[in-house]
């Protein structure tokens, strides 16, 4: 029981804050709750398939395969594969973290994982369409190019500083 409370400490504290808000600032509480409920709906649809896919990846894809596709010596090919994996429409960035973690443990190159996460976060086809519609094609094209460059540079910088020891251990 205690260990459960400890594990869920953060959400429990948040629930208390919501309770406090409901008493002192009911209109804010209402807005917050509406957003939260909306998010839970989105998560309930996206999270289960992503976690199942991650489980399948861990069981079926051998380390050598990941290393050969997006590992240390894959150069431009590895960058392109990582980029395209990231642009597949698959929901918010936080669902990509566990996937990225498994890929890193399986021997993916750090800079490729940063490209994967960057593409996942900032460069998606449906997203680019909405961006073009509301901010125009030249804005969208320029942000696309600059973001891509930034992600490649960030990957290179991080690669020099991150080693396998910095990654959390698989339980």
């Amino acid at each position: 029981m205690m260990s459960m409370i400890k594990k869920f400490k953060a959400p429990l504290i948040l629930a208390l804050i919501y309770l406090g808000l409901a008493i002192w600032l009911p209109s804010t509480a209402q807005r917050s709750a509406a957003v939260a409920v909306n998010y839970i709906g989105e998560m309930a649809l996206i999270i289960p398939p992503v976690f199942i896919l991650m489980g399948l990846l861990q069981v079926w894809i051998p380390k050598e395969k990941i290393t050969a596709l997006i590992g240390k010596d894959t150069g431009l090919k590895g960058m392109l594969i990582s980029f395209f994996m990231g642009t597949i429409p698959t929901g918010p960035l936080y669902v990509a973290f566990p996937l990225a973690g498994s890929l890193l443990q399986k021997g993916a190159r750090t800079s490729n994982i940063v490209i994967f996460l960057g593409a996942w976060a900032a460069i998606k086809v449906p997203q680019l369409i909405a961006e073009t519609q509301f901010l125009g094609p030249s804005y969208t094209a320029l942000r696309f190019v600059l973001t891509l460059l930034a992600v490649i540079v960030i990957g290179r910088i991080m690669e020099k500083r991150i080693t396998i020891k910095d990654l959390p251990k698989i339980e």
Partner: protein
Amino acid sequence: MVTIITIYAFLVVCLALSIWKSREKTTQAFNLSAKALWNMAPNLLAIVGLVGLILGVLPPETISSLLGVEAGAAAPIAAAIIGSITLIPALVSFPLAGSLLDSGATVITITVFITTLLMVGTVTAPMEIKALGKKFTLLRNGLSFIAALIIATVMGVIL
């Protein structure tokens, strides 16, 4: 909608293949998924709660007034802070950014807002740390924040 359909279609194909090849390994995969999900559950719930709280206190109208013309020189700074701490779906943030631009906000402000929103995640950092480690998370978010400022400046100069 496209997202949901793509991901489920992909899952069905992978799952069918997996069951066809080995039931045992499929069960093993499910066990791994369940364990990972249980591990992440507190973080996921906390993200939901925090996002709700932040957007409850900072509804789109408030964000608009903080990033709009009347905010003046403080607008890009507000954009960087709000973009880094909130989690607004891209399909909502683009119309918001578009209307801000039309009503006179600068390219720098809205680009800082969009780029930090997409690439920097304070609320999701605990989950990122759990999956990728503290060092990775700090570096990725820190460098992305700096990149957002540079990208916005370059875009402000060019456009």
